[in-house]
């Protein structure tokens, strides 16, 4: 397992998390976050921990998985920190570096895999995939599933995109770009800001 200091270094250098050094710990982000009550730590505290290299706790927390990219915090941040971007970085790091990937990661993957296959999210496919990974949780949600089917709110048969091969090419390119790793990421972040 990678030690905390190395992980912090990786977050700072490879994922450009260095920016959080600017944070003055005012708490505007946690105060504005609609999901703060469900998070283990608010973004402010998460950054304070990351700065002091408590990366174990940071990567195993649920904070970044609860981020819904509403950008409320980014707009108000008095230090102009791209908080949402760092949440994405931490999600990525947690998926790659954590010993015990969080259950939330499976949910993310279950949503993603039908998209990769059909170019579109199909509820039933996502549910099935998640059910395979976490049968107990799936069983618990069974009554809701039945209700949805009865109300015809659940799409069962996947409808692939018309130009699926084109879509797959796009995704491949995206993956390739991501694998080139974060060289261009800072530039992207800068351009988003502008």
């Amino acid at each position, binding site marked *: 397992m990678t030690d905390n200091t190395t992980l912090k270094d990786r977050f700072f250098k490879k994922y450009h998390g260095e920016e959080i050094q600017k944070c003055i*710990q005012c708490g505007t982000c946690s105060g504005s976050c609609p999901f703060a009550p469900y998070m283990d730590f608010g973004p402010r505290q998460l950054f304070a921990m990351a700065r002091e290299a408590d990366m174990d706790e940071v990567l195993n927390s649920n904070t970044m998985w609860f981020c819904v990219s509403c950008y409320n915090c980014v707009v108000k941040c008095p230090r102009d920190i791209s908080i949402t971007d760092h949440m994405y970085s931490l999600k990525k790091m947690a998926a790659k570096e954590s010993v015990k990937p969080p259950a939330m990661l499976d949910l993310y993957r279950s949503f993603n895999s039908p998209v990769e296959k059909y170019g579109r999210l199909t509820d039933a496919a996502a549910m099935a995939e998640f059910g395979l990974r976490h049968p107990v949780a799936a069983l618990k949600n069974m009554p809701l599933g039945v209700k949805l089917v009865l109300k015809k709110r659940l799409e069962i048969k996947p409808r692939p995109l018309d130009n699926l091969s084109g879509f797959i090419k796009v995704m491949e390119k995206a993956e390739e770009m991501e694998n080139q790793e974060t060289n261009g990421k800072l530039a992207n972040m800068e351009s988003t800001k502008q």
Partner: protein
Amino acid sequence: MRESIPKIGVYVCHCGTNISGKVDVDAVSQYAATLPNVETARNFKFMCSNPGQQLVIDDIKEKGLNRVVVASCSPRMHEKTFRKACQTAGINPYYFQMACIREHDSWVTEDPDQATKKAKDLVRGAVFRVTHHQQLTSRVVDINPNVLVIGGGIAGMQAALDIADGGKKVYLVEREPSIGGNMSKFDKTFPTLDCAACISTPKLVAVGQHENIELMTYSEVIDVSGFVGNFKIKIKQKPRYVDADKCTGCGVCSEKCPSKVLSEFDHELTNRKAIYTPFPQSVPNTRVIDADHCIYFKKNRCRLCEKFCEANAIDFEQKEKIVEVDVGSVIIATGFETFDPVTISQYGFGRFPEVYTSIQFERINNATGPTSGKILTKDGRKPESVAIVHCVGSRDKNHMKYCSRVCCMYSMKFAHLVHEKTGAEVYEFYIDIRSPGKGYEEFYNRVQEEGTHFIRGKVAQITDIVDSPEDRGKLVVVAEDTLARKVRRIPVDMVVLSVGLKPSSGIEDIVRMVGISLDSDGWINELHPKLGPLATPSDGIFVAGCCQGPKDIPDSVAQGQGAAGEALSLISRGKLEIEASVANIDPEKCMGCRQCEDVCFYGAISLNPVSFVCEVNEAICKGCGNCTATCPNKAIELKHFNNDEILAEMEGILFNFDKFQGDFNQDEIKPDIIEPV
């Protein structure tokens, strides 16, 4: 005009470790010794010290040096020091050249080898240049003893009073109808809780009555020309439409005036009339008619004030006047205005009636304010809870990135006043409490002991959305309590936004007129942050108070007094030596196209109507070089910066001496052997 063979002395300064920490000073001085015409080259720990200067003086006397190069800091720091040393030793002070190897080299270069190389290049440039220097004599000008003070706030008033008490004439220009500035709006002042009016009103009266102060309210400076000791100022006096000599200040006109306007002085919490004085203790107490809102000016009828004025003081025919005055120095004290929080939409200022800015809250607390000093909500209730939000606009990259310095203290003053007057619960939402000052930390402790809730967290949102029964009819302040690590929603009756300070509007025009600059936040750049906090790069222009950066009252008063001291010291000297580097027009080459006249910032150039060539007024010329670069006929030469000197310096810097070995005569350097290093 080279009088004899140049004998140059080169002195490399260590500046403690500022230079020697990066630059190999031994190598530089040894290298300098090999340059043409260099008689002696040394290095020394502190060249600006007495022994350092003595070294130069002794060498000039003993070795017969006639040119001196010192490689040390920027010429802005010590050029004068070494020129004086040269003069003491008996050579013309303009036979000195400085190579800046600190600001331009050791402080900004990371690699020691590169730094040493650059130091050698700069020294070589200076050695080449100094050979071409000419003897010049400085001019002496008289100092006009009158002083102009721009801005009648506490800093400007203090400066004016001190100079006037010293027996010198002061013109105090204020753009509002009354002097007093922001301080006259306050109720109490931290940390001693003196009443602001009690300590400022006597000053207002003193300024108004002083025989040496010519008070010009409702006036603006529109033009500044001239130079240190001899400024010509144009002042626009806006028409008051009331004869100041006749008006007794009885106030009947204001009572009778039918029009209502939102009061600027009360920050739109109350109404005033179209004929008014900003506040009861205004100086001068002459009323003023606001032509934009006066019914007579808008609809050509009414004139009620004229009818009721027993002194016959109303004069609708008054016109704008331009007054010209001559002064020797100018003190800028234009102060600050408060940040407008409308742009921070999540705080709801302007949307929720119970959200106030701090300056509005000052007015609410003030006995002459909208509620006669009682803290009441707009519907007349006593608040049960009040939130005070720190850092509104300050310390925020989206607005003003600096700390406004006074907000923490005045917010805690508010907390105390709310406790005292209403007994309400007070919540202070802060990021950091900054209380550096005499008695300030003690005041913080006192407010803590009074039971104020200090919550460390910047407010994320102020909302009227009801989440629980307690929230009904209240404003809910949402913030993370970063110390308790939870998000709090606190329902309150009143919210005070502690808005930051920003430079007064119109400051750009004033700095442009006097030829100084603003920093990136819009405050005036002082000459030196530590050793010249009141002076500016323009001689004879001083600053005081908040126009240079946010300050509290004691600091503003101290700066006002300091600036007065600077001005008085200048006046006491009576005469001033001025740089000899001025433009010189060759009448043989000038064709009278007058392009130089257009670009001259200081109005120093005019066309001689007889000979039809341009002439420079050396007393006004500042040696900026604008005309020299503009002249299509190359008829203008800037003394001490002529082509020979500048080209020689460039040749010196660019010439790769290492590659050019052998017998070496500087005059023979041709462009084809110049190779960038």
